[in-house]
């Protein structure tokens, strides 16, 4: 099953959150736009399972040839799963950012920070303005 970009919510910092699951677990990744902007990814640092994060907290890092970019959690909760195959297959992030490219799953603890997330149309608008 392929994830529909229109069904996701987006943070200003380019993470996406899939909150459509019934079990209260959000799947988090980064957008195709961010991956293209970062360009030439070389390293990703993932959190430990069990880590508690608040919306807006840094939960990991992604590095390109030129720079280090923090990954910020769009939701509050506990990390229940990390995509451990991803750091060794960063080139696949370019091809498939929404499905293979998921980074962590977080058991959501509340709505905190939800109002700051954008729907797909608003996020697209932000990206087109950033050029």
């Amino acid at each position, binding site marked *: 099953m392929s994830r529909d970009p229109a069904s996701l919510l987006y943070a200003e910092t380019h993470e996406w959150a899939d909150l459509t699951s019934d079990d209260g677990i959000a799947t988090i990744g980064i957008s195709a736009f961010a991956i293209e902007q970062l*360009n030439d990814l*070389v390293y990703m640092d993932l959190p430990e399972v069990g880590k508690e994060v608040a919306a807006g907290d840094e939960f990991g890092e992604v590095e390109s040839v030129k720079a280090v970019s923090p990954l910020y959690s769009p939701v509050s909760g506990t990390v229940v799963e990390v995509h451990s195959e991803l750091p060794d297959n960063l080139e696949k992030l370019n091809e498939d950012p929404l499905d293979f490219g998921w980074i962590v799953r977080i058991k959501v603890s509340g709505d905190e920070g939800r109002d700051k997330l954008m729907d797909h149309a608003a996020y697209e608008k932000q990206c087109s303005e950033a050029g």
Partner: protein
Amino acid sequence: MSTDLLSTPLLDWHRGAGAKLMSFAGYEMPIQYSSIVTEHQTCRTSAALFDVSHMARLRFDGDHSEDLLDHLLTRKIKDMPIGGVRYGLICNAEGGVLDDVLVSNLETPSQRRFHLMVVNASNREKIKNWILPHLADFPTVTMSDRTELTAMIAVQGPKAMDVCKRLFKCDPTKLKYYRAVITEQFGKPVIVSRTGYTGEDGFELIVRAEEAERIWENILLCGRDEGFAAAGLGARDTLRMEAGMPLYGHELSETIDPISAGLKFACTLKDRSFIGDEALRKIHADGPKQRRIGLLIEGKRPARDGCPILDDSGNPIGIISSGGPSPTLGKPIAMAYVDAASSKQARYAIDVRGKLIHATAIPLPFYKREGN
């Protein structure tokens, strides 16, 4: 982007090519056109064109210009032949590096001789202000800043010389490494210098600003079948790191001396008098307090400038000065300064934002082209 940035004569071309632009040393410069890794590999396998017009170009005319420069530089300038190019440092009296520069001894077709000094963009005003008081001691010498009137283009890669040899009135393949000549391209004057900052063979051109775009496009067209492409400052940085070359502000600063930096080859200390000579002789005799080393990082996580190097007890013994992934080696590399007493270790621990990674010391450079 803010409009108070300076632009090189090639900025419109970079914009048209879709380059990602950034502010660098006051200039709006291309960081990459497509991908840093692709541009890096173009330079290593074919040839890449770099707009390096932001580098400052200072011209010294008049009798005794070689004496002025000899007094300012760690490298002997007085005995340079016409067409010679030398890399040297401008130091303060304590031996700290004010800038690393290239000096060429050139002659125009009408037999007018002058010296040209290429200075880092970020140090342009500092170096001009440093030289001004010394000019008074050499009344026959004039210094003129040619940066705005000219553009500078680096063409670097194994195919650079061969493809471009027909472009100039003189055959640049006849130029030896670290030699330069004033010649012509389509009847317009151009300085061709067989130098570079990538570890590859190639040349650097200085052309009139108004000719820059035409020559840039000429070279791209000439090398089209060989895969020539424009490359930005991102690739320039990964290329020079692999070549083990210092970058001012990273491996060099006013608190780092050339001996610690491993640049003794660029210091002629015997039987000469220049600014900083006594300090450098003492550092050379006593041994430097720190040394620049090369590191091959274990794992995939790069260690970048500013990361501390720790001993077994967690005490800092050094600091990374430049670091990042090496596209050629496929793993991260770094240059670092470590205390002289710790500079012979085979392996080092580096603190990357709270996480410890390890690296093996390897001799610089990380990359050497074939036949060199």
